[in-house]
């Protein structure tokens, strides 16, 4: 990928919804506005998602099956989220970037083929 292609690719992402994972496990979901060589990413209309804390998980586990806390069980908990607006995620804190897509039939086929 040469520079022109790189710019083209990044420009194609502008305005799309990205999920940016940070080193502290939080996920930021917002519209992609800007990036640079250091992979700093600016997102607008961003929501912050956070994994449930250990205490919340413990409480939920207690609520689900108070008598057998020791046994492993499957729990389903929502991530907590809040609106935080315009943010910049510095490149060095990014662990993963995902693009939100609404699959079109053709794309689904592609992904089926790929797997």
């Amino acid at each position: 990928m040469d520079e022109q292609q790189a710019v083209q690719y990044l420009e194609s992402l502008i305005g799309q919804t990205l999920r940016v994972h940070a080193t502290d496990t939080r996920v930021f979901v917002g519209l992609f506005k800007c990036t640079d060589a250091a992979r700093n990413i600016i997102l607008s209309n961003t929501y912050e998602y956070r994994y449930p804390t250990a205490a919340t998980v413990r409480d939920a586990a207690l609520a689900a099956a108070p008598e057998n806390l020791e046994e492993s069980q499957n729990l389903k908990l929502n991530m907590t989220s809040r609106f935080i607006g315009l943010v910049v995620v510095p490149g060095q804190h990014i662990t993963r970037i995902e693009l939100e897509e609404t699959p079109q039939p053709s794309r689904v086929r592609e992904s089926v083929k790929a797997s």
Partner: protein
Amino acid sequence: MLPNNQGRAPTTRIVSQSVVPRDITEKFTQAASKLKTGQLVKDEYFTLFEAVGALEIMDSKMDSGYLGPEENRQGLDDDYDVLRDLSPGEVVGIMDELLCHEVAWHMGHPLSQTLFTSLYLDKLLWPVPRSLEDTHFGRGKLSGDKTEPELVHIVLRAYCLALVKCCDFVHTRVTREFYYEEEDFSTQLYNRELLSHIDHGVIGNLLNRAISWIDEQDTIDTNLNSAIKTRLEFRHEFLFSLQQDTNILQTRSVDRLETCLLMLPTLKESSHMGQPVPEAFSWKIQRKLASTVPPRPMVRISLEDALAHLKRLCQDGIHLNQILDYRGPYNLRVAIWTILSRKPQPSVYIRSLIQTIIMNKSIILGTVPVKQFLYDELAALVLPSNILLEASLDETEVPSDPRFQIAQYMDGFVRRFSQPFVDTFRSACLNRCRIRRTVCHTIVDWDNLQMEDLDEQLRTLSEEPPLQLPNGDTTYSYPLSSWAYHHKLIQFRLILQLGFELSIYAPEELPGMYWYLSHICSTHLGHIDRIRTFIVSAAQRSRPSLAKHAVLRKSFLLFDRLTMQIVAIDALAISLHALYVLLSRHKTLPTAASSQAYSNDQFRYELRMKPFLHITLPELVPYDEYSREATLQGDSDGIVMDRATKAIGEARKAWEATLSNGPFLEDSNGEKPNAPALEEDWTRDVKDTMRACIGASIAIETVKKAIIANRKKGDGAQPLNLQVTIPEAGSKARWHDWWAVPQVQPGMKT
């Protein structure tokens, strides 16, 4: 003025179920690495200016969700257990702390730094409760595991819920009216709700239950017991008085606020029994709030400050009752401006409430239609018993009838003028800086509204005969534009006087600005004379009936009243102008600008006249003329001294007369408002002005002596041996905010 349009953040993100994330980390990283240093790929409409406002994630100063290494283990949750047992003293401590936070919010601090730092409130309000049953501290915990202690469950819970509901009432009122976000008030709720859908009556019942429960407790120390009880009772009364809101127009009852006011000292006395529980409040809750700002520290105000603020709120709320009886526009204006000019200014809740009371759905004070209100004003000032106002009372339906046409024109006039006219009242409810700014804008609107052609059309229809002037010219009354001009002149004066109050002018500008104030006053006096002349001649022509005579007499009384007030302002302005000219001539006036400053008198004058540039009438005074007048060019010191002395004498007499006239006028039914508290405020204000007069005459005498002494020594060109200070607005030595009277003392030099 319309209520603020709230750009609320979207509450939840809407995602269609079919959205799938695709990992692009590698491709993105690869592409980004190809960019040159400093090269940006960005949305073409996204500016760097905006980018500066972005919050930097993982930066502890910017990112409210950031957890430092030491906090990471603990996570978001504070260790505090809201279900723990509390001692009665701790309950009192928490209640008082909550009250402080509540008042800090009233004062304008955001909820995130005040009430939303309470872990108790956080538990009640998040996740947003669907019903009253959801609002308890044990939410999300197992019910059988641990029961809530009764003191917490019955007493503290009821108190917290009632407090939140109080905030809901305040929030609802303020957001419906005109206010300035972050300047007056912070309305941001961070995607939470203030129990708006829960009925206040149910919460009132919980409070009552808590009160009777606490009555039954005999294990609690009696003093502590009654401290808790008083707090609950106060909350109950406060809740219901805020709930009353605009219903005061019907009930005319302020009993509950009066009870609140009586309870405040008890709250203060028993506050020492409270045991603070600092762990129950945490600014870390900010990281759970939907917020687009960096984390900020908790706001702390003292209980004394909080109670003092509440005391004023209650008092202002009680005195509100005195503006509700409609006794004509003049009296309403006096009452509104008097209550809102109190120092410190009434809280934003009271100011919002007054805005609604002044006009709601085109009805003034809940009883008078806006058209009637405007007609009353016109009848009193420019059109006593005139066909223009009576035409609409006739049921003439023949389109060719002049009366029908007059009514049509007048309806158009009412449509255009009623809102700006009501806004001259409502603008008093803004904060002081904003009043001045708003008037600077609306004055241009009034200039555009002043329509002579409408007067000309009406004149042909009403067959108004011209008035012959002494020099042989003829002229007409132009009643509607005369009235608009009258209001414009009032606004000119307000802009200048608020300028003094807000310390806008530098000391070197004071001579000029007081000259300009007197210039506006004399223009205004001339204008009132003109209106009076036309009314007199119309009366002579028509030989009015007895009833109409009474109406005319009322108008003349109003003119006398207005004239006296303007004369009083004019005279004091003239004397201060002369005094400042003397100080400036003898180089004893302090200056704000240094000698090398780029600014000069002309630039400053241009800046001050900016709001008036687009005004056609009164005409702008050219700088040269202003400069001549403002420095009293050509007048010797002796003449200027005489001028100052004479004017200050006039001013004292005129202010005394104003004081004895009192604030209010009898309305058309011969009734005056019954507003003792406002009368007291008004009287204090006039008396302060009279103190300013006395201060000015002392200063004039001191300057006079110094000038004469200098002349005797033969060094008239030397600066006077005087120390001149201009007391800050709001300070004790400044007798009145609108009158910057210098303090002049014989200097130390020999």
